[in-house]
């Protein structure tokens, strides 16, 4: 595979334009030069022939009178206008009667000779005829100076025009880029932003060009669909993630959620220098209810306890079911033991009402609660949990001494 740098559309447009222009200009220049050259050459030849005939007509009496000076004067009067380099008048025997050379030859001889070879295949000649008798011949060599200057000027003009055209091409390519490639680059930029930044809300603006707008509309529609899918996926993912951390029976956080929440709470308490409390709860007589009324009854009891916990707790407090009949509550920053005690008391109170089972029986239960406060009872999550757990067992043991019932 080639590793060559990729072309941008602008470069490609510029190149294509340049080639097109160069091709068109060169083609036009070549055809014009060719046809113009042929026409000019034919005109030059005809002009030289005409000058030769005019010279012949003008100098004819001078030749008849054998007046050399008059021959020269006659030639000069006709040929002095330019376009003629040399005029020779010969008699029929080939003797030169007069030679006239244009005194105004400004270009070097080799250049004039080359120009002459290109323009005139032969010197122009005209017979001197007097009363039907041939009395001599005029032979004229052309002077291509004016034509060379014309060709030079033409070449300069052509090159200037070419340069202007190239500049115009650049400008046109730039304009084309602005009008066509600009919108395309918008699309590319939006696509890039969508891919890298997930900004599905970006849309391609209206470009004002039918094809690109149609493309942009489809692209936007695609983006809208993508945005919908993305939103759905994100929502479902969030739900899934939430479900992983939820206890399906009570709707409270599960053990995983608690294990994530406890260190978070510690960190938050450290940074804000506030205290919080961990309440470890265990349902009284749960095993007995299960044995007496079945697991469905046990589940109903757990659900009812979950509801009652939620009803008591404040907005920032969190309740979790660790498994079985064990619950943990994280109390948001508390002012003092007073608050914790009050909430614990309220929790106990909330549990006193009997729980109605589906089979019509009502069962009474309660919560054994162990409290550990940060930072008084521990600084690490493990320490806090251990302390709360031990406090809960102490409590449960104390309660079982007070009552004859087995908790």
């Amino acid at each position, binding site marked *: 595979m080639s590793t060559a740098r990729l072309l941008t559309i602008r470069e490609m447009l510029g190149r294509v334009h340049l080639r097109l222009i160069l091709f068109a200009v060169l083609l036009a220049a070549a055809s014009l030069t060719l046809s113009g050259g042929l026409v000019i050459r034919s005109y030059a030849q005809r002009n030289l022939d005409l000058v030769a005939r005019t010279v012949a*007509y*003008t100098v*004819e*009496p*001078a030749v*008849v*009178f*054998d*007046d050399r000076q*008059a021959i020269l*004067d*006659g030639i000069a009067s006709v040929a002095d206008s330019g376009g003629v380099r040399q005029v020779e008048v010969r008699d029929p025997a080939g003797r030169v009667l007069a030679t006239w050379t244009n005194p105004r030859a400004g270009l070097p001889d080799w250049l004039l000779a080359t120009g002459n070879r290109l323009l005139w295949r032969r010197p122009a000649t005209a017979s001197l005829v*007097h*009363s*039907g*008798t041939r*009395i001599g011949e005029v032979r004229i060599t052309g002077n291509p100076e004016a034509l060379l200057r014309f060709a030079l000027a033409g070449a300069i003009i052509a090159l200037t025009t070419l340069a202007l055209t190239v500049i115009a091409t650049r400008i046109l390519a730039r304009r084309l880029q602005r009008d066509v490639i600009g919108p395309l680059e918008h699309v590319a930029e939006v696509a890039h932003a969508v891919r890298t930044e997930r900004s599905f809300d970006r849309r391609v603006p209206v470009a004002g060009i039918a094809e690109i707008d149609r493309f942009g509309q489809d692209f936007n529609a695609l983006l809208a669909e993508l945005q919908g899918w993305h939103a759905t996926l994100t929502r479902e993912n969030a739900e899934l993630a939430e479900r992983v951390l939820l206890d399906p029976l009570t709707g409270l956080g599960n053990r995983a959620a608690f294990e994530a929440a406890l260190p978070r709470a510690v960190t938050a308490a450290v940074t804000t220098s506030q205290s919080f409390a961990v309440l470890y709860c265990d349902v009284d007589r749960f095993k007995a209810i299960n044995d007496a009324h079945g697991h469905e009854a046990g589940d109903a009891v757990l659900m009812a306890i979950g509801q009652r916990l939620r009803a008591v707790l404040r907005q920032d407090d969190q309740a979790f079911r660790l498994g079985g009949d064990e619950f943990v509550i994280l109390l948001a920053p508390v002012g003092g033991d007073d608050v914790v005690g009050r909430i614990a008391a309220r929790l106990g109170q909330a549990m006193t009402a009997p729980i109605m089972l589906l089979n019509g029986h009502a069962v009474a239960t309660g919560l054994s609660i162990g409290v550990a406060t940060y930072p008084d009872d521990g600084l690490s999550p493990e320490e806090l949990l251990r302390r709360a757990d031990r406090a809960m067992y102490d409590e449960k043991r104390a309660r079982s001494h007070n009552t004859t019932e087995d908790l």
Partner: protein
Amino acid sequence: MATGEPALTPFALAGAAEAGSYDPAVARVVQSLAEYTRWPTPRNPLRLCVAGPALHAGRLDGLRLADGRTIDRRTMPPSAVTPGACDAVYIGQLPPLAQRQLTTTLRGRGVMTIAEADPACRSQAMFCLSFSAQAVSFRLNVDAVARSGLRVDPRVLRLSAGGQP
């Protein structure tokens, strides 16, 4: 070109020898002028009258024009020259007054006039010869040409000494 005539006096010989050297040139000029002049009707042969004593008219006999016409030269006294007898008149060594009289007679009658002895061209002859060491040239009197009743090729005007515009 020593084709002088034996009958001439030594003085005349000397003069003729000098004058005779112009004869071919004069003949050529006269012939060429005749060739570039158009008569109302073509004249063949062209009757060339030499009026008065001429110094350089020795070669005017038997001239043939480029178009094949011949020149019939005749010599006569000025008084005998009439438009009906001559198509062209070569005016020889005559006093100015006599030259003037002759040209007045011929004016407008279709007769070409060439003056040999009028370098300033005041005689109202159409053409006046002038002689230099190198060549024979001529002057053209535009007024006389215009009144002559003949047509002279305008290119001849360029050739006349001092006649160029």
